[in-house]
């Protein structure tokens, strides 16, 4: 028996041997063992009675699961552009020097590894990192020194200064949702008083639209799910807030969790679901314990569980599933696949989750903020809710503001607010561009700052990254191409290969080897990915390159060579090995100045 066996057995036992919990089991086993060795994976497969391939599929898909040793301390720097702007690259170098490591490599004694990870959702308090999936904020050179000392002394994470792990809400502007008073249970009782149909009618009257960015009418979605035939219905809260630059759901889950959960219960009440899931991104692992505690508190107060608020037949409970580092799981059908313990590959849609969702049953998937807003609708009624915002975008929107401004943080505005107003409120001056809704969103320039945040003008899932006049928008776009190549699930050809090609072309331009030919390639790939990719990830993956080429052409042009073509293979550099082997450095061993 290997030392892993009892740990695997316990994890499988806790999940009653149910293979839909495979991802949760892998995660829990790894928390105990630091990585999933082949024999550990085999033990999981045999105890769950599933093929090895099923374990390997999940294990190799998620960034935070390791099938090779990654050290006792796994230090991952958030690689979002906002972290970079706050100096993360130099801090990463500093840590590598202190630990005498190369990036991606594990120290020979198995102590530590240092690498990059996609945005950890701490853009307003970066640079940030994850240490063994625990978020560390506000990194400085001094903090890096301390961390390297702690690592070298093998101090357990539980004994590190708690201030490292402090995560602030930074609520800078509160409106109806963030500023309203909230009395536990009140929204639930209001929904019960309205009745299942009455609550649905209010939802439709409110015209509340999904806050995850797509803007589908939530009431219509709930009605579709309620009407879909199925023995069981489910409610899923999409808390896989992975879009770089977004962090408002983290604030809602940290401070407004009761509202999120009540919103889920109200959704369950309307669609006839008794089970709900929160799919929490792995980067927010630190929220798991407080959220579990909140659920327990609500159960004790009969705000969850059987007979909620004493209403007969209103049974609803919630469990939390943790992701493991995969941006694509924010796509609702990929999220459902992941909830079922599988790799997060988006399904063919239609059918949509409202009819064929979790375990093939009707499922509502709503964003954290949307579910919070449902409590507002329950409390105030649809009409009152719709009185805020614009006609087609009712209510308020929470923005995650980061980048070049004095007051990064969370800002809630009625829909329709101008970009310029947000910039003024957060103290941004000399702004060259704002990237709204993250790398998959839109890059706006000053002549567009009078546009409005609204589904009918500038829709957004919440990210609002500000770039000052001194920033290089080419580097911003290049950062995004690396992000997408890393996060592509690999299912469809255009995205799997295309995101890697785009990344490599951008790197070639960055290296000063690009020409007009590369620009044409980028635009061709932009069209192909936009038109033929399987899901939104691939369809939007080249948006930022396209936008910045249109709007910040000099940032590209100053890197381009003024000729038709430059080969990707650098022949002169390719000959270096041959010269070294031959021991030659004379002029004839070089190609001479490149033509």
């Amino acid at each position, binding site marked *: 028996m290997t030392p892993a066996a009892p740990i695997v057995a316990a994890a499988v036992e806790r999940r009653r041997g149910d293979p839909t919990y495979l991802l949760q089991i892998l995660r829990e086993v790894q928390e105990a063992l630091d990585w999933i060795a082949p024999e550990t994976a085999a033990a999981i497969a045999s105890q769950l009675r599933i093929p090895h391939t099923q374990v390997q599929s999940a*294990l190799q898909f998620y960034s935070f699961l390791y099938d090779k040793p990654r050290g006792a301390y796994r230090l991952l720097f958030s690689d979002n552009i906002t972290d970079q702007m706050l100096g993360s690259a130099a801090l990463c170098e500093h840590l590598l020097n202190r630990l005498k490591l190369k990036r991606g490599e594990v120290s020979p004694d198995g102590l530590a590894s240092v690498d990059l990870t996609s945005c950890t959702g701490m853009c307003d308090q970066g640079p940030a990192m994850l240490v063994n999936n625990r978020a560390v904020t506000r990194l400085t050179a001094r903090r890096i020194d301390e961390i390297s000392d702690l690592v070298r002394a093998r101090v357990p994470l539980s004994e590190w200064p708690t201030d490292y792990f402090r995560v602030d809400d930074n609520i800078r502007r509160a409106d109806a949702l963030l500023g309203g008073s909230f009395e536990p249970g009140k929204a639930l009782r209001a929904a019960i008083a309205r009745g299942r149909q009455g609550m649905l009618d209010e939802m439709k009257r409110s015209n509340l639209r999904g806050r995850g960015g797509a803007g589908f009418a939530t009431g219509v979605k709930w009605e579709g799910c309620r009407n879909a035939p199925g023995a069981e219905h489910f409610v899923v809260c999409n808390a896989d807030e992975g879009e770089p630059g977004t962090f408002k759901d983290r604030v809602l889950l940290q401070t407004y969790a009761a509202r999120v959960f009540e919103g889920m219960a109200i959704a369950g009440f309307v669609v006839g679901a008794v089970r709900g899931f929160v799919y929490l991104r792995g980067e927010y692992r630190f929220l798991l314990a407080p959220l579990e505690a909140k659920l327990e508190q609500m159960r004790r107060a009969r705000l969850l569980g059987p007979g909620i608020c004493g209403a007969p037949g209103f049974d609803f409970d919630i469990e939390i599933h943790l992701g493991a580092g995969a941006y694509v799981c924010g796509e609702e059908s990929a999220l459902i696949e992941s909830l079922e313990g599988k790799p997060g590959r988006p399904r063919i849609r239609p059918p949509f989750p409202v009819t064929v969702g979790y375990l093939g049953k009707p499922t509502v998937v709503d964003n954290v903020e949307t579910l919070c807003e449902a409590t507002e609708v329950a409390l105030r009624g649809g009409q009152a809710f719709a009185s805020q915002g614009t006609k087609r975008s009712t209510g308020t929107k929470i923005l995650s503001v980061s980048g070049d401004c004095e007051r990064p943080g969370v800002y809630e505005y009625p829909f329709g607010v101008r970009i310029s107003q947000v910039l003024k409120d957060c103290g941004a001056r000399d702004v060259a561009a704002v990237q709204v809704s993250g790398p998959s969103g839109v890059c706006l320039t000053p002549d567009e700052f009078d546009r409005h945040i609204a589904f009918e003008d500038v829709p957004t899932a919440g990210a609002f990254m500000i770039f000052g006049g001194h920033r290089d928008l080419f580097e911003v776009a290049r950062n995004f191409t690396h992000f997408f190549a890393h996060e592509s699930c*690999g299912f469809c*050809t255009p995205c*799997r290969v295309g995101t890697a*090609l785009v990344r490599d072309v951008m790197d070639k331009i960055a290296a000063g080897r690009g020409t007009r030919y590369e620009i044409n390639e980028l635009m061709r790939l932009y069209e192909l990915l936009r038109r033929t990719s399987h899901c939104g990830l691939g369809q939007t993956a080249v948006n930022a390159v396209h936008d910045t080429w249109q709007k910040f052409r000099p940032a590209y042009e100053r890197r381009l060579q003024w000729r038709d073509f430059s080969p990707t293979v650098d022949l002169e550099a390719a000959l270096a090995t041959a010269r070294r082997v031959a021991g030659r450095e004379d002029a004839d061993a070089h190609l001479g100045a490149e033509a």
Partner: protein
Amino acid sequence: MTSVEAIITIDEQPVPFKPGQSILEAALHAGVYIPHLCHHPEFAPHGSCKLCSVVVNGRSASACAMKAAAGQEIEVDTPELHAFRRTLVQMLFVEGNHFCPGCEKSGNCQLQALGYEFEMMTPHFVHFFPNLDVDASHPDALIDFNRCIQCELCVRASRDVDGKAIFALAGRGLNSHLVVNSPSGKLGDTNFSVADKAAHVCPVGAILVKRVGFAEPIGTRRYDLEPISAEAAQCAIEEA
């Protein structure tokens, strides 16, 4: 008897369909060719290769994944879509290691045939040249991972027809790859058999039955004799 409403239009040509059919199925049954690679008539739609990308009423869609519906106006053979498909085939070529002259599937390979179909003269992109293995551990079959295009036909055949679930895709993005269901990861340690459906669905030369590679000489093989687009006419004849 087809009801009058059950008609879609493909490149201005009316095509009948049966309820529940995808656009691709309806087209192939009517003898109209829509390029495809991960589709197989015996399996559920998959939608990963994207070669069947078409334009339906002005919007892009995969013909294999979208149900036919009365009144759809579908564009298939346009210069733009043709160029998209050529690029997709080039992408499949550069992400793996495909050397047609040395491949025993040459002439029966759908990827190669599609290269010809789209007049692909070069791979166009820089090769990724991934470092991949050949698994010859099984007595009767081998897997050349260099040639896998991740269509998941073997995955589906083994799971849905053979009831063995021997294959799966693992990894992410460009690192996605086929894995085999045994603790060693070797095909020889599974219950795979050349009698399995999964041994005969690979559209390229990734899963090969041993000792029959050149039984049929190169030059007289399926796509040596007729282009892959002739398959649609074949489908229609079999239907009738």
